[in-house]
């Protein structure tokens, strides 16, 4: 199988380099390398954004967690619809703000809108977390998959470095546009391979039968039920939960990191560099909420069950992996085993490619081109981006090879930290009275809460000082929700006292243009109120406390004493029903309310930083003196 696996992986890597070469040859200028010319086709965004969302959610972990927790974890996939809803709310406005102001990145937009260098720095730190540990986490797991699939013939470290070299080649040749082209194709490949893997397992390994009968799960876990609305547990690592950790509170709070993917600087950069049209709407409704969530809800539970069935002893010990499943597939047909390995490799490789490329390009635009060497020509900026990409890939591969634990620790909290920028982005897009001070204070609270409900803060604090009374995700609430709750509370409270802050007039200018030229007034206020009320009710029952009803709703109908025998668990039917409803609401927002459709071309006509261009002279004095001294030697 190893030879076939290498051949297939080689073919897809060669495809990536072919696309990169074509893109480089058709380039309209050096700046295209950095942002793809700012006119990526709508289908590119529609496909690639779904792939990034599904793979950054962690498809690798998703199957393993489904094997351990059964359908209660499957419910988390409904949270992707929350991400699609968040996309409908902010993506178009971010795109408009970028075009109106001529700024190209989230850091530049937020920094200029709030007039804050602190926010720029915080966003650069977030970018660094996505670019290095988050990407390294994926690359490390990719090495594990290749090692398991080749039965040890290709060592993990070797796979990591070879893959890093090929991904680097694709990025360094073709730039941003080529990377997104390739990811768009890989997204379709990923969805096809999920379907193929499930089909093979269902037809030859009898996976379908387990859903009607006993769904495998770790001992003591309710495989076909949600274990309550909330559990008063001190958190993972401190106190065990009863029946599993995925309570409705855990499911709701775990949906927030998915929004974090959407708000990451790389994802926003992808949105900003997309051409106007219906790409956002098509992505949010049909690709992400429709195909993406459908594949996750309907197909991946079978793969999870297959992993559990392939290694019952390991499942009992909680030490499952893909190795046994790969061997089972190998016994059927080696091309199917390669298909399974390729599905995992594709899902793990997408975040590495996109976050590394976006990281390198954004560092050049936001840091290098702005502060370090602002006078660089477009050609030199492209060179700087290529050198930065090389450095980024070396660091990612080194982290994945030699410090995978640290990559896991930092990578684990990256999405939770990303969602802490939601109030800042909401302010930029819709809420003009959210002030700079409020955003920064909220962020400080949010970041602290995230760090101290994730392994990093717990390990450091308990190692240095005293034992903390809580563990990871106390009360079965995800760290993202802990952070966001305190973040929003602080942000809203401080905004009340800073309604007439001196920087408000600067913010008002952007909102005045939104209100004048891009008014969202297609539907009546009553209809809008009805829509948002229905969405809240849907969210309450889909993944809020009301989801607990799904445990028995279809198998033990209310107002009746009879128990029905169904071909599939009641919870699964509940998930499917609320998936359909979710797609409908996203469609309503994206298409009917026109929140995700951009019809009119937009011209740059507002400078949020008077007298400063995107690449203006902004080098701090001390830095300029150091540079001058070094340059003169």
């Amino acid at each position: 199988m190893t030879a076939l696996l290498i051949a297939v992986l080689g073919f897809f890597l060669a495809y990536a380099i072919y696309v990169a070469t074509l893109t480089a040859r058709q380039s309209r200028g050096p700046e295209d390398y950095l942002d793809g010319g700012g006119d990526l086709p709508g289908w590119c965004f529609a496909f690639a954004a779904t792939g990034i969302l599904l793979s950054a959610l962690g498809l690798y972990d998703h199957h393993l967690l489904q094997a351990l927790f059964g359908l209660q974890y499957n419910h988390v996939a409904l949270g992707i619809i929350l991400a699609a809803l968040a996309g409908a709310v902010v993506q178009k406005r971010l795109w408009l703000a970028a075009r109106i102001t001529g700024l190209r990145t989230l850091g530049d937009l937020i920094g200029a809108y709030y007039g804050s260098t602190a926010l720029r720095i915080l966003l650069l730190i977030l970018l660094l977390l996505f670019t290095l540990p988050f990407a390294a986490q994926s690359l490390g797991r990719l090495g594990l998959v290749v090692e398991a699939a080749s039965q040890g013939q290709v060592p993990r470290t070797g796979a990591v470095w070879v893959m890093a070299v090929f991904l680097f080649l694709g990025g360094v040749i073709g730039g941003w546009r080529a990377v997104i082209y390739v990811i768009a194709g890989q997204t379709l490949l990923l969805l096809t391979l999920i379907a193929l893997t499930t089909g093979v397992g269902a037809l030859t390994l009898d996976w379908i039968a387990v859903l009607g009968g006993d769904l495998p799960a770790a001992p003591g876990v309710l495989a076909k039920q949600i274990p309550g609305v909330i559990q008063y547990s001190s958190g993972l690592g401190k106190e065990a939960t009863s029946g599993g950790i995925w309570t409705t509170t855990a499911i709701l709070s775990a949906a927030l990191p998915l929004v974090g993917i959407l708000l990451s600087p790389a994802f926003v950069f992808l949105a900003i560099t997309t051409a106007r049209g219906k790409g956002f709407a098509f992505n949010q409704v049909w690709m992400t909420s429709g195909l993406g969530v459908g594949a996750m809800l309907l197909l991946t539970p079978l793969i999870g069950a297959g992993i559990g069935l392939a290694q019952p002893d390991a499942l009992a010990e909680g030490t499952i992996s893909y190795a046994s499943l790969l061997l089972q597939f190998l016994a059927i047909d080696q091309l199917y085993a390669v298909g399974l390995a390729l599905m995992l490799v594709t899902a793990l490789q997408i975040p590495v490619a996109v976050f590394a490329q976006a990281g390198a390009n954004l560092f050049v635009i936001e840091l290098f081109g702005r502060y370090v060497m602002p006078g660089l020509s477009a050609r030199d900026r492209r060179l700087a981006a290529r050198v930065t990409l090389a450095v980024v890939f070396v660091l990612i591969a080194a982290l994945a090879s030699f410090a995978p634990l640290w990559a896991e620790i930092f990578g684990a909290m990256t999405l939770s930290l990303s969602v802490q920028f939601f109030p800042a982005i909401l302010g930029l897009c819709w809420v003009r009275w959210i002030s700079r001070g409020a955003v920064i204070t909220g962020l400080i609270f949010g970041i602290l809460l995230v760090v101290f409900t994730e392994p990093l803060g717990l390990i450091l604090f308990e190692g240095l000082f005293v034992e903390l009374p809580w563990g990871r995700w106390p009360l079965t609430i995800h760290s993202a929700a802990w952070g966001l709750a305190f973040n929003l509370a602080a942000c809203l409270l401080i905004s009340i006292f800073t309604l007439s802050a001196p920087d408000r007039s600067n913010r008002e200018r952007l909102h005045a243009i939104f209100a004048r030229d891009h008014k969202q007034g297609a539907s009546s206020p009553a209809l809008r109120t009805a829509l948002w009320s229905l969405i809240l009710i849907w969210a309450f029952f889909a993944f809020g406390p009301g989801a607990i009803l799904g445990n028995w709703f279809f198998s033990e109908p209310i107002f009746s004493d009879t128990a029905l025998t169904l071909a599939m668990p009641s919870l699964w039917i509940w998930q499917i029903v609320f998936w359909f409803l979710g797609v409908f609401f996203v469609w309503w927002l994206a298409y009917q309310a026109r929140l995700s459709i951009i019809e009119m071309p937009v011209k740059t006509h507002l400078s949020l930083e008077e007298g400063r261009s995107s690449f203006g002279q902004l080098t701090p004095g001390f830095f300029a003196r150091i540079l001058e001294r070094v340059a003169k030697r």
Partner: protein
Amino acid sequence: MQSKDEGEAVIGRLDRHVLVLSFWLPLGFLALALFTRGLDLGNHWLVAGAFVAVLVGFLGHVIANAVYRTFFTSRELALGLVVYLLALLSFLLALLLGSERIEALFAVIGLGFLALALGVIAYLVIHLGVRRAFEAFDVISDFRTRRKLEEPDS
């Protein structure tokens, strides 16, 4: 240096090309996986699935054409015809050599080839109309017209 319009046109062609590849990449793999497995097991459904995957790929190609308001490029036509004819020849050769696997799957493979041909013809007729679709393949009249043009006036 390209003009702005030329640059846009080139990027448009590149966008379309990559979209077409994005459709064929996964569906080609799927078709291959299903066909080889179907051939090994002598399973009609798997072989039929492989042909359905190819038809879906073709449909994706047609969608790409519609999105970018184009037709198949000459390279795509040439590649498609060569692959189709090679596959058809391999099928007929295997039948002539008396391959038992192929004989067992004769009906489904034959129908698959027929479905592909009908799919292409249906697209041509819908896109070009019956007359222009026929003219596209009417090599003889094309040849005559060209010869007339090349002949010096007598």
